[in-house]
């Protein structure tokens, strides 16, 4: 088993320049920066319209040091397939393809192409950064916006529907690797990317990326909030390797600890959850408790 990467053993080479247009305290920026360290320089990126497009920069200046193809919103995974096909006919064995798309571009408009690519066994890594809304266009709700969140187009009632479980959808494609990660746990993200890189077919990553303007918090608390999501048991770090589910990092430790921070703490930390009632929070707490009771049971 590979040793876990530490801050000190993390590669120091940077693949992003400073001075991007990302928001102050952007969670995606952290995940992206560390993710690229894991992917390395022999990578071609595919990016649909999203916050990342803005972070990557406007013509003619790019903030990323890697080759990147911008594509239409719905076509990320199909474009990745096209690049892979070309690399194959060119006999290029060493170049990886990695798609980085937002939750809207993945769970909503991009789901069809992603499902198609996964079913075809396209050999690339797909990283969905989930800031839980269409943040680039001003924080509208998406399929992965959690229930109760106030967004620009669920302004008074909050989102009425549950968060779409995209990793579960992708796991149903019999992938060699599916992972749920968080920008607040960058070393876990790094190790998972490195672990799966040589596995066959499509590898799917779902990365929780806190968003200060979209979620409503002081930017300095971004990592704290990302951690709280995990420590309340609300959002789990895991991997599914050839169909076998396993919690990782801090989530794995919680199974031993048997103690979750009340999810109310997580909701209180962001103004987007301001309309959640105590009753609604209690329901969510029960769901979390039930999920974890199951984890504890499997552990015994």
């Amino acid at each position: 088993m590979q040793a876990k990467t530490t801050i000190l053993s993390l590669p120091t080479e940077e693949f992003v320049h400073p001075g991007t247009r990302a928001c102050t305290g952007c969670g995606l920026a952290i995940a992206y920066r560390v993710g690229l360290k894991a992917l390395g320089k022999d990578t071609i990126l595919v990016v649909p319209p999203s916050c990342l497009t803005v972070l990557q920069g406007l013509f003619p200046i790019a903030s990323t040091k890697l080759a990147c193809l911008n594509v239409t919103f719905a076509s990320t995974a199909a474009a990745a397939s096209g690049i892979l096909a070309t690399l194959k006919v060119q006999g290029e064995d060493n170049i990886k393809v990695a798609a980085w798309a937002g939750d809207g571009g993945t769970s909503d408009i991009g789901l069809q192409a992603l499902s198609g690519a996964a079913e075809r066994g396209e050999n690339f890594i797909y990283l969905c950064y989930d800031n839980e809304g269409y943040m680039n266009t001003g924080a509208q709700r998406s399929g992965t916006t959690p229930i109760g969140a106030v967004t620009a187009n669920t302004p008074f009632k909050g989102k009425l529907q549950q968060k779409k479980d995209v990793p579960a959808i992708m796991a149903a494609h019999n992938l060699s690797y599916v992972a749920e990660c968080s920008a607040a746990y960058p070393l876990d993200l790094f190790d998972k990317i490195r672990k799966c890189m040589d596995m066959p077919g499509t590898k799917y990553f779902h990365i929780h990326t806190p968003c200060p303007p979209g979620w409503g918090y002081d930017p300095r608390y971004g990592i704290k909030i990302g951690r709280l999501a995990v420590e309340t048991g609300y959002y789990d770090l895991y991997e599914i390797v050839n169909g076998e589910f396993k919690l990782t990092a801090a989530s794995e430790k919680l199974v031993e600890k048997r103690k979750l921070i009340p999810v109310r703490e997580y909701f209180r930390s962001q103004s987007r959850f301001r309309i959640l009632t105590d009753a609604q929070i209690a329901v969510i707490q029960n769901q979390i408790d039930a999920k974890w009771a199951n984890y504890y049971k499997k552990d015994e």
Partner: protein
Amino acid sequence: MHIIENGNVAAALGVKLCHANVIAAYPITPQTPLTEKLSEYVEAGEMKAEYIPVESEHSALAVCIAASSAGARSFTATSANGLLYMHEQVHWAAGARLPIVMCVVNRAVGAPWNVWNDQQDSISQRDTGWIQMYCCDHQQIIDSVIKAYWLAEKVSIPIMVCYDGYILSHTYMPFDVPDQEKVDAFLPPFRPDYALNTEEPANLNTVTLPDVRMDIKGEIAHGYMEIRYLLHEEMRTALTVAAEAEKRFADIFGRGGDPYVEPYLCDDAEYVAVGLGSLTYQLRVAIDTLRKEGIRVGVMGVRFYRPFPDVAVANALKGKKGVIVYEKALSYGYEGALASDLKSALYEHLAGTGTLPFVQNFIAGIGGRDIRTDDLTQSLRAATKSRVSKEPVWIGLKL
């Protein structure tokens, strides 16, 4: 080598001869047999290509765009609603200046559903910045695919090779399959100015501002408007390059003609029927009938719809008494798109010179409505007596 095959196979053979190496395919009537044929070539090892059975047409063109950006010679084919589904990508490929070749097997668009032939699908893509070629028979199909790759890669503009669904795609005709060595002599391997790579990484087609902006080397780079202007400008010069393609092709393969128009008995004609695709060959039967009646009439096929060969068309029709445009599509709310473009070309080049013919527009065959040669003859005869109507007249309508 002469063979007898259908139009879809002719197209597939053209793609094979051109060594396309990334093929995206999604089924839609009546194009499906074309990409099926390609899957046979790929699985049998006759083509060294990656064949990707995508999950939608939007993804089909996405695959081609990405593959072309990485340096592959890519191909896909579609019809009707499939083309409409990829419309966003059609614009994208042109703005990205990618030399993709796509066969559009013309079919009517929904709503309501209709699988039969008309040209609304490709005509509706007129403004996207793709070059459009229209074929009249199977020889033109296979030859146009080959010419298209050469032209597209020369000017970095994607090309739609269009041919009529069923009428050409599914019928059998004899045609010559060019020798591979000759095609290789005509069409060198694809060498783009830039292909995505890790040694000189670049970020392609990101957000581009309305105004010009300084790059990292201190030079002022284009704004969006300049990039789009260059597409248009190079589309116009593509007319000249198309003539070069035609000549090169003729030199190597021994067949060809005027790159822009295909006239039949037009030299001494007083009235000329104009159209796109196989309809112009059917019109030749009407021409022959009317000629026997002493009417000096001819028919001219327009080979490139975009860029529109305005000068060639105006020169060919200069001094004629009337031009009768037959179309299997229209711009709803006004008139046939070809008729409009043609009128604009005639006005531009001939107004005030005393050589401006009238233009009569007939719409026929919408949704695959049978176009009876008799109806063509009658309508043409009537138009040579006097202009029938300012509004387009729909032939074969049964209201």
